[in-house]
């Protein structure tokens, strides 16, 4: 067994929270740059340039890219040969607490959905832990702003709804979000599984490198089809008109029940923040 101290996990999560908030990942920067070329609206082009300038300034000055530094969503893939000395869950929350406090990030979490008192340190995080092969711990921090999260959707379609039903839900979700979700978007689609599985697939779809096609041919074709349609909505950067409404559509699938076709659509704003580390 390889031993990993909980304090090491806390330190890493704290660093990842700050890194994610300040510096847009390279793949997202590259996708936005490509967008400047592809966008047909002059205003859309100007907005994309502004977003690139913002990303540059934020990373250089260690200022958050967006004031909504999000709810910290943490994916922890824990190797079954690793032994964590201490409480894993508590270590992750402690890392979020430290990262958000020391990094001057916004506390955006309320303790109860109805009472709505701010917890003051952005905890608790939403943690998805998986036991995997090996002796490493892989941590993936993806702060999620509410602008795009609020516009996401899940529907239990009938198998007969098929591709047409999926298209309708994706387009309906993107159109309803319009400017509020801060396009250009990454559209994460979770297809199959059960209700909660579809939502998690959609979230995980956002972790993929921007524009990397699915390894499955049918799924990759669906991704291209959906991206073409999303970019025909006219919404454009910041919703002020244009042809670059989404950088990518990522679809993740899982087998499902003979009677089911669960579909989740998780929208990601252009500030597609994430940072990862392996211990």
């Amino acid at each position: 067994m390889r031993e990993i101290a909980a304090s090491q996990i806390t330190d890493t999560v704290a660093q990842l929270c700050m890194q994610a908030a300040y510096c847009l990942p390279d793949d997202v920067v590259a996708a936005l740059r490509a967008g400047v070329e592809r966008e047909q609206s002059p205003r859309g082009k100007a907005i994309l340039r502004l977003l690139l300038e913002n990303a540059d300034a934020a990373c250089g000055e260690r200022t958050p890219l967006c004031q909504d530094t999000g709810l910290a969503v943490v994916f922890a893939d824990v190797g079954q040969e690793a032994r964590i000395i201490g409480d894993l869950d508590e270590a992750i929350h402690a890392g979020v607490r430290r990262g958000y406090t020391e990094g001057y990030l916004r506390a955006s979490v309320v303790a109860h959905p109805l009472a709505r008192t701010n917890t003051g340190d952005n905890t608790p995080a939403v943690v998805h832990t998986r036991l995997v092969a090996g002796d490493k711990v892989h941590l993936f921090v993806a702060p999620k702003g509410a602008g795009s999260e609020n516009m996401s959707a899940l529907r239990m379609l009938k198998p007969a709804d098929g591709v047409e039903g999926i298209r309708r839900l994706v387009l309906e979700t993107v159109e309803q979000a319009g400017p509020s979700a801060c396009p250009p978007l990454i559209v994460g689609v979770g297809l199959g599984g059960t209700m909660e599985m579809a939502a998690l697939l959609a979230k995980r779809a956002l972790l993929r490198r921007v524009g990397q096609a699915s390894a499955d041919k049918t799924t990759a074709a669906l991704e291209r089809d959906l991206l073409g349609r999303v970019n025909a909505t006219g919404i454009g950067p910041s919703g002020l008109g244009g042809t670059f409404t989404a950088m990518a559509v990522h679809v993740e699938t899982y087998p499902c029940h003979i009677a089911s076709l669960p579909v989740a659509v998780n929208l990601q704003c252009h500030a597609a923040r994430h940072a990862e580390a392996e211990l």
Partner: protein
Amino acid sequence: MSKPIRITTPLSGEDVERLQAGDEVLISGVVLGARDAAHQRLFELIQAGQRLPVDLEGQVIYYVGPTPPRPGAVIGAAGPTTAGRMDPYTPALLARGLKGMIGKGTRAREVIEALRKYRGVYFAGIGGAAALLAKHIKEAEVIAYPDLATEAIRRLVLEDFPAIVANDCHGGDAYRDAREVYRRERELTG
């Protein structure tokens, strides 16, 4: 695109009348920073017929919940948040003299009608450009509801803050119009 129009707060009736959906503007002067929780409190006071902690006459509200400032900084990152969440409260605030709002995203029909009725304007800021937009905020001070932390009401002094007129007082809607220009129906449904 034409040259941006420079406007200074508080907004006069004349300022509002000449703005057209789609205009680019640079806003300077004092605005109020407020979002969800502060709106709810203001709305409840209005409904109860009580005095507000801030005067709304001619004012512009910027929907913003900034990140904490680093030592010595005026403010942290400070971009616009989704305006639609403030829709249920907005007509009541416009009736109290509010003239403008800065946010992102489309507004409800009731708000667009209220902008016509009370002669107000809604500006779209660029969501997610918070590090850059913060540079256009020269002063920031919490003036009401400090217990709301990032959601407190702030007095903000803007300098050439860039925005686009999304909804004017004449019924114009830049978000709707811009989307139609670039919409390709055949690719959407084909």
